[in-house]
């Protein structure tokens, strides 16, 4: 293959890998917003916490697969507790976004400090599991297996999510609750339970992303801010609450990142926020937003 073409394919794959990782974080965030109307500032902290848990489980069991199973589970449980004991109470105050913002920001600060006290402030040593290490070769292109694994894993979760949301009765209930919780609860469905379930699901996805990212990125206390900001941009630009929007924008951002580096490296720092500012100026509710919440 022509080296230039190979390079573009590789760059496209890089964009896909990071975009899909971003999607895993952002989809949970947007799902929670769409359902509960909460802008969860602590979402990225859950993502980071899961990466740290991955390290801990690895230290105990030495199995990446075990940590891929356990860490998101613990994160989801934590998400459930947060929803039940904090967010639900605050929502009852009826103060809207600003209260939830302060609350979730407080939670993210507590998580960040706890992580620092338990695991220290330096980055942790997490290597790629041996079974996924190395390069895959096809048609003259060499690409890291682990990145392909991330792409595959994210698509699996996307498929799972879409199936649950659009093909099952549970999904119907969830979507109905999102659009009119009052009506659904009249129908005899326990809406708080549905809310809690969705929150846990969002946290679980952040957890999966955290474990997937741990060997690829650097696990240190600033990880949440690093990825959180990007996820935030994705959710806002895609339209708060829109899963499709999050998907499209995650990939766009990923590719914009790769090809931006390739062709217009001087603009790379401005790219993300410039993109956000332009899109929001034209469409204040994002690409797929449905008006105001």
């Amino acid at each position, binding site marked *: 293959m022509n080296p230039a073409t190979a390079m573009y394919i590789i760059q496209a794959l*890089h964009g896909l890998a990071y975009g899909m990782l971003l999607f895993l974080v952002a989809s949970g965030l947007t799902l929670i917003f769409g359902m509960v109307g909460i802008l969860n500032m602590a979402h990225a902290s859950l993502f980071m916490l899961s990466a740290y848990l991955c390290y801990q489980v690895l230290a105990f069991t030495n199995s990446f697969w075990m940590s891929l199973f356990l860490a998101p589970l613990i994160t989801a449980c934590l998400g459930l507790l947060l929803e039940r004991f904090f967010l639900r109470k605050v929502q009852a105050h009826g103060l809207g976004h600003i209260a939830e913002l302060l609350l979730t920001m407080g939670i993210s600060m507590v998580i960040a400090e706890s992580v620092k006290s338990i*695991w220290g*402030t330096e*980055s942790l*040593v997490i290597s790629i599991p041996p079974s996924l290490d190395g390069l895959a070769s096809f048609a003259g292109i060499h690409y890291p297996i682990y990145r392909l694994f991330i792409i595959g894993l994210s698509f699996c979760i996307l498929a799972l999510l879409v199936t649950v949301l659009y093909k099952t009765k549970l999904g119907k209930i969830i979507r109905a609750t999102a659009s009119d919780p009052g009506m659904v609860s009249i129908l005899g469905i326990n809406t708080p339970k549905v809310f809690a379930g969705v929150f846990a699901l969002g946290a679980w996805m952040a957890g999966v992303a955290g474990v997937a990212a741990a060997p690829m990125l*650097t696990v240190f206390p600033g990880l949440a801010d690093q990825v959180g900001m990007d996820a935030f941009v994705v959710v806002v630009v895609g339209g708060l609450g829109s899963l499709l929007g999050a998907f499209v924008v995650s990939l766009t951002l990923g590719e914009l990142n790769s090809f931006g580096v390739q062709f217009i490296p001087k603009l790379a720092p401005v790219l993300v926020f410039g993109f956000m500012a332009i899109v929001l100026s034209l469409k204040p509710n994002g690409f797929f937003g449905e008006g105001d919440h």
Partner: protein
Amino acid sequence: MKVLNVKGYLFVLTLLMMGLIFCNNCIAFQPLAGDIETFNPSFQYFDEDADDVIKIGLLWPFSGPAAANGAIYWLQIGWAVHDINTQGGVMVDGKQKKIVLIKGDTQMEPAAAKRAAEKLCLQDNVDIIMGSTGSHIAAIGQNVAAKYKKIFVNMASYSDTLMDQDKFNKYTFRTCSTTSMLANGLAHFYANRPEKDFYILCQDYAYGHEFAENFVQALAQVRPDARIVGKDFHPLFVKDFAPYLSKIQGANAQVIITADYTPDSNNLTKQWDQLGMTIPLAGPFVLNPLALQSIGEPYGKGFVTVQSCLLDLDKPGNKEFALAWNTQWKRWKDPLYSTNLFQWTGSTLAQATIGTYWLMHVIEKAGELNPDKIVATWEGDQTIIFGNLYSMRACDHQAMFNMHVSEIEWPNDYYEKSAGPIKVTAIPAEKIVPPPPKGLKNCQ
């Protein structure tokens, strides 16, 4: 008159000779002569209200997102201070005075930094301030310190412009290197090496640009046939370096020059390994044990690191320093200090320790804590620490010393299970220290 028999005479002679050996510099303390075994960075307590002590304020982020950075300097400076204190202290005003460290928490925010610096000067009444990570924070620190006539020792901020006409004041000294010294040192290292195609990947930040410019200039002088095959400046805190690295692979570079620091440098190293790259990285912060361990064997063999104080194990005192440090590290249980990052000293971990030893030598020579006396003594001072000569340029208060460059080797007999700098090349100070900034009164 048989007051002394032969044995007694010999005894007195031996005592005298030993005295001569120990007092060849006639200073009261020697690096590593103290009771370093009792040092633990997590348990350093100082009596801030004690009389007759030398008070040093540390202006670093000790809380908030950048707290890790403060911890590193608390450890380094604490080491030297503990060493000196257990030897009795520093000879000042005819008395041996112990050193007391007081934290001034900048939280990495300018407003908090100013508050902290003022508290150190006015409330804690420190004699000296050491600082500070972040050039904008250091600028505030040196300005406040000068206002209250306190010595400010810059041990962590590399920006060349910190000592220029606008910001220089006579109470500020810099014991660490400048960005240009690092870049020049690296360029001189490549003067006699086979590699000649370089790709520059730095942070899109004043520091990154400064490093790149200086490297290119110095390289053009010492290696006219070298080529810069590409140059990229990336934003701070890049999550995924893969696009940059693939681009570099396509550019046929032989070395990647990068001035990145953590977390960027760690991410870069990890993703460099994931893409199966073989083009070595070279820069001041590529020798990070945590990043190198996570990429597995051969732990970044072939990387090139440049630092002011890489320990050259053949030089006197260096091996002892490294071993004493490593022995102590095994006792530190606090997660803050127990990671492999702190396993071996040298590189960035020794810089402020050496700076502290130097400062204390200067204070001892000055014999008093009067800032003007210290300034007069330090200007032009020359001191040897761990076999390296450190001299203070009188006109702009920039420390001059050899820069050390080394290829990282693995396996080696020395650094347990990790790659390390074994064959250290010293680049002489006169080749790498930039000329004093124009416009300074004393420099003309």
